[in-house]
């Protein structure tokens, strides 16, 4: 298209391009350091104590003002429900579910409560391009529906399949997930509704660091009764909600392949190249251009370049 390009115009264009690139630079290369709050709260879930009464589900439903389910919370038939061969999961009507597992060799079924694990370095938060998520000093991962665009990357990023989307709404859809009862309870130092409702003390609310010590002590005092692992101590960089189990975790529905590093770590490879491309490419390709087209451009064109280019 452009027949004559002088060195001056290249410098000019190159400079403009570089400044443009710098101005537009999305700063994606900077690593996102999520503060680890030392006094973060958490919950220790002891699977050996849970009897599957679903009181926590009912309490959550009432506390979060979620729609009343078809089957009452006293109905134990729901444990038989499967969808796509899987047991119940969180969705836009329930932030927590309890599932039953018949484990071979155990004389009674085991129950596992599912809800947001409130990661130390949440993948939902780091993947969100509008900063809709916040990790509060109390440990909760909360969500701001006012800025959410509904791209659902957080749902892709969450290794625990926790965030769900209100697909049923055309005008005010949003992400629906457990928020640790932040607005109504945690903020005021109170335990979440599900923990309060638990009749078995299967859920223990406290400072995360203390919960890890308590978990270790329980394992130590009853080596035969527990797996020697607190699920959530390291998974995905550590979570505020943690679990103790008497059987291997994969047998009660846990994903044991989740890496111990935060999910963000696997994205850093790409984030690192961004500033390099932004800074090196303009010079590199302007250089290629000079090398490829130098022959056709006699030096004298420097002075003549200008208005006559226009046609």
């Amino acid at each position: 298209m452009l027949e004559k390009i002088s060195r001056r115009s290249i410098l000019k264009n190159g400079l403009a391009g570089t400044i443009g690139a710098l101005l537009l630079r999305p700063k994606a290369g900077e690593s996102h350091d999520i503060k680890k709050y030392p006094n973060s709260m958490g919950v220790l879930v002891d699977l050996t104590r849970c009897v599957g009464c679903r009181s926590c589900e009912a309490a959550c439903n009432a506390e979060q003002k979620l729609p009343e389910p078809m089957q009452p919370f006293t109905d134990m038939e729901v444990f038989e429900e499967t969808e796509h061969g899987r047991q119940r999961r969180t969705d836009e009507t329930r932030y927590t579910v309890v599932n039953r597992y018949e484990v071979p060799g155990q004389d009674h079924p085991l129950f596992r409560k599912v809800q947001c694990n409130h990661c130390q370095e949440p993948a939902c938060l780091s993947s969100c391009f509008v900063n809709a998520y916040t990790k509060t000093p109390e440990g909760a991962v909360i969500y701001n529906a006012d800025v959410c665009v509904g791209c659902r990357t957080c749902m892709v990023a969450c290794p625990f399949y926790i965030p769900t989307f209100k697909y049923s709404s055309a005008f005010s859809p949003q992400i629906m997930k457990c928020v640790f009862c932040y607005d109504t309870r945690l903020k005021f130092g109170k335990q979440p509704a599900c923990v309060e409702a638990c009749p078995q003390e299967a859920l223990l609310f406290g400072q995360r660091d203390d919960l890890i010590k308590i978990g270790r002590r329980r394992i130590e005092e009853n080596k035969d009764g527990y797996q020697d692992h607190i699920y959530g101590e390291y998974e995905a960089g550590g979570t505020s909600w943690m679990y103790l189990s008497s059987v291997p975790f994969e047998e009660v529905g846990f994903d044991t392949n989740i890496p111990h590093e935060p999910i963000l770590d696997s994205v850093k490879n790409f984030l690192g190249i961004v500033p390099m491309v932004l800074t090196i490419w303009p010079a590199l390709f302007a250089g290629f251009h000079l090398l490829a087209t130098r022959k056709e451009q006699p030096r004298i064109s420097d002075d003549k370049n200008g208005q006559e280019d226009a046609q």
Partner: protein
Amino acid sequence: MKALIAEDTHLPITGTSQNTGSAWSLREKIFLGLTTSKYLEQLRRNPVNWLLLIIFAVGVPLLLQRYIYGLGSVTHASNDYPWGLFLGFGLFAMVPLSASGFLLGTTVMLFGREDFHPIERLALLNGLLGYFFAVVYLEVDLGMPWRLAYPMFVSLGPAAVLFLVAWHVATYLSVQIAELLPAFFEWLGRPAWKYYIKRISLGLTIAGIILSTLHQGALGALFTYAPTKLHPLWLSVEFMWIHFLCSAVFGGLGMVIVSSTLINRFMSWRCGKAFRENLDYMTLGLAKGASFAMFTYLVIKLVAVAHDNEWEHLLTGWGFYYLMEIGIGVVLPMMLFAKAVRDGAVALARWAAFIAVFGVVWNRLNTALFAFNYQLYQDVPYWKEIWLTVTLYALYFIVYRFIVYRLPIVFDWEEYRA
């Protein structure tokens, strides 16, 4: 159209003025120089339009349903598969096929390869429309489409990969519009306005390379957020971005060959002399580039398998499927391209291009849908979702055709007729 042009010797419109010397009016230019009744007649005569009509007859009500009753009414509303066909095809497959703009821009503008000039505008248009429709697909998929500009102006999450995609696609769209404005100015009869674009065209081209490198790569990097969900053969935490960028090179080149083949075959009345005479030569040139890119891609795919030590995965069912994707989608068209270039067999190169484009789409669908959640169940999109995806593609086709019919994309605009 062809038949009507045969009746009327001064058509199609190829320049500012008619044979008589008077200038075409804007209305005449929009109606291709036909009267309204003749214009409608050519629309009716074309069987493709009837097919489009059927697609829209079902698709438009579905689109309304989506905006009135929510995404859940036209999709499976899956919380396990948050991204369905709208993004799997519309974003992840449309964007690599639209790499053509930056590739041909680089070839012609940056490396001074004027011999590819006759196809440059088609490549730019293919790029622009592909990106534009990726945004259209996004607007159907986003939960709150009216907040499209939020990541730019309202609430910024600069450390997220999607933030980069959003900014780069938006910026690159503007770059591509600027690159195509000269064609529009010529058509409008305002050739002098081109001057301002020409002055910055090298800057635009380089900006195009940077933005393309990063957002093509970023689309791949989005899947590194799901290291436990995507099958390890499709996911390479280290090299995902370069896999996506590299496959976009032959995807984009393949798409230009496909598009130019279709235009040359079905719209020959619209093709200018330079386009028609150089098309075979340019097609082989693009084929050569594509086969080099494919060879590079094969090697870096192999490197990824070796790097993550995933050899044993190749012996599983997933491994067989993966090898099938590579074999049919990459190795086969690569060999065909190479043979076509060696023998000068243009028709073969065109077949290879169709396969290559299919291969890239297949890879993106595998990544976003089929190998995603490989440990769970396989979600098959709801028929309404599939129909809507086709409907939007039909819209893309119409806009594409509308522009190629009118603007000087595959022919040179004559300012003054002697």
